[in-house]
């Protein structure tokens, strides 16, 4: 009950921030539109909507990190969190209260991306449902990363690290903009050591109904999600103790 009250508050704070909505939802949709327009005017299949959309949904999740990190860092800086520490809310209430609201927001963003892509020519099939559900582990990774960054960085730092660095990392290493096989080398090795390309590949595989291929990519995503969640919880508890 207490946790749900806190989670409700976090949802309102995120959804009432026009910058959050503008970037989190607007930017991926603008990219879909823009890259589809480019595809319509080039002779090669670089940004086909059926491969582009799953990748864009993965890229869109990086904004969940920005949302959660900004909210937590702001709460720390305005002393709201300190004040809440004097109430009967427990550590798990805080952690779940920050993380839970972002999961439906992340899935909602994914659904909107797929719906937006339909008039642009996306193939409609039941696989879209599997692709949306398949986003959950990567969403947990991004939300946990936000909890971690919000626990250790200031609002200003979060803006730079999560807003600029992470969104770029997610974009470059997910293989959304270009085929990673073409680049190869160290860049390719780094990309495959990170979860972004695995999430994009899994999304594409689920969207195309190739479930065996999707299964091959889920393990690194799960491992990263578990690892970052554990580190994030540790970092949050540490800053809670420091307060």
């Amino acid at each position, binding site marked *: *009950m*207490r946790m*749900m*009250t*806190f989670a*409700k*508050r976090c949802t*309102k*704070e995120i959804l*009432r*921030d026009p910058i959050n909505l503008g970037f989190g939802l607007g930017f991926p949709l603008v990219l879909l539109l823009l890259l589809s327009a480019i595809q319509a005017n080039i002779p090669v299949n670089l940004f086909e909507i059926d491969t582009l959309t799953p990748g864009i949904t993965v890229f869109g999740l990086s904004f969940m990190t920005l949302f959660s990190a900004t909210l937590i860092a702001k709460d720390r800086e*305005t*002393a*709201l969190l*300190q*004040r*809440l*520490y*004097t*109430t*009967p*809310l427990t550590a798990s209430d805080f952690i779940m209260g920050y993380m839970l609201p972002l999961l439906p927001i992340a899935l909602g963003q994914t659904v909107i991306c797929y719906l937006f892509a339909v008039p642009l020519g996306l193939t409609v099939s039941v696989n879209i449902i599997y692709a949306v559900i398949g986003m959950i582990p990567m969403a947990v990774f991004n939300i946990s990363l936000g909890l971690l960054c919000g626990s250790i960085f200031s609002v200003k730092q979060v803006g730079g690290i999560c807003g600029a660095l992470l969104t770029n990392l997610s974009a470059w290493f997910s293989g959304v903009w270009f085929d990673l096989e073409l680049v190869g080398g160290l860049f390719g090795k780094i990309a495959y050591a990170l979860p972004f390309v695995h999430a994009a590949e899994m999304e594409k595989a689920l969207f195309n109904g190739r479930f065996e291929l999707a299964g091959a990519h889920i393990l690194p995503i799960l491992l990263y999600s578990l690892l970052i969640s554990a580190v994030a919880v540790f970092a949050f508890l540490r800053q809670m103790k420091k*307060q």
Partner: protein
Amino acid sequence: MQTIKTTNLVKRYKDLTAVNKLCLEIEQGELFSLLGVNGAGKTTTLKMLSCLTKPTDGDAIVGGFSITKEAEQVKRLIGVSPQETAVAPNLTVKENLELFCGIHGFTKEKTQMKIKELSGLFSLDDVLQRKVGRLSGGLKRRVSIAMALISEPKILFLDEPTLGLDVIARHDLWDTIRSLKGSVTIILTTHYMEEAAALSDRIGIMKHGRLLALGTVEELKKKAGSDDFEAAFVSIVKEETV
């Protein structure tokens, strides 16, 4: 009857001793002010008493419970309004109050009743539906203190409640704080002499983490040999008269 009793309370941060062997007794229903220059240890004392930070040494009994061993019980008795206006800016005044009612496990009926009571007490009726982030500094402070009172605390900690407010807003807030006197034990920190003099039953003057003097305004003036409270404060702090 004592509500708060500190025994040799110490807080050290590496080489810095923020609070040094503080011994203090505060009576039930009293409005007690901690006065001191920057770095005197006022906020650190409040943080320890409200279980936000653990003492390095010593202990304090707050409402019958130890801050070192029974923090959860202490938290159920206290309300805290921090130095910064700690509110949820994108939520309306009503939603902020509802948030704290929910956190304290109130029913819907009790929540509505509490909001009505506090919005009346703090003159917030006209701004209940407005987002707190868009309110003036004075109104934000009132919301902040109203939030601290939601849990019906026996002890209320106000850390520099009028910091940054204009004269009118400050006097309005003083009236509100005065209206709480007697029903709640209030521990207030402030930099403003006139605030401490106008509101407090007793005042403790701190410097470098130590309690230099303790008493009513008249007692402190007498102790410093001055008719003016500000002059008395300066004299006590400069000469460290105990």
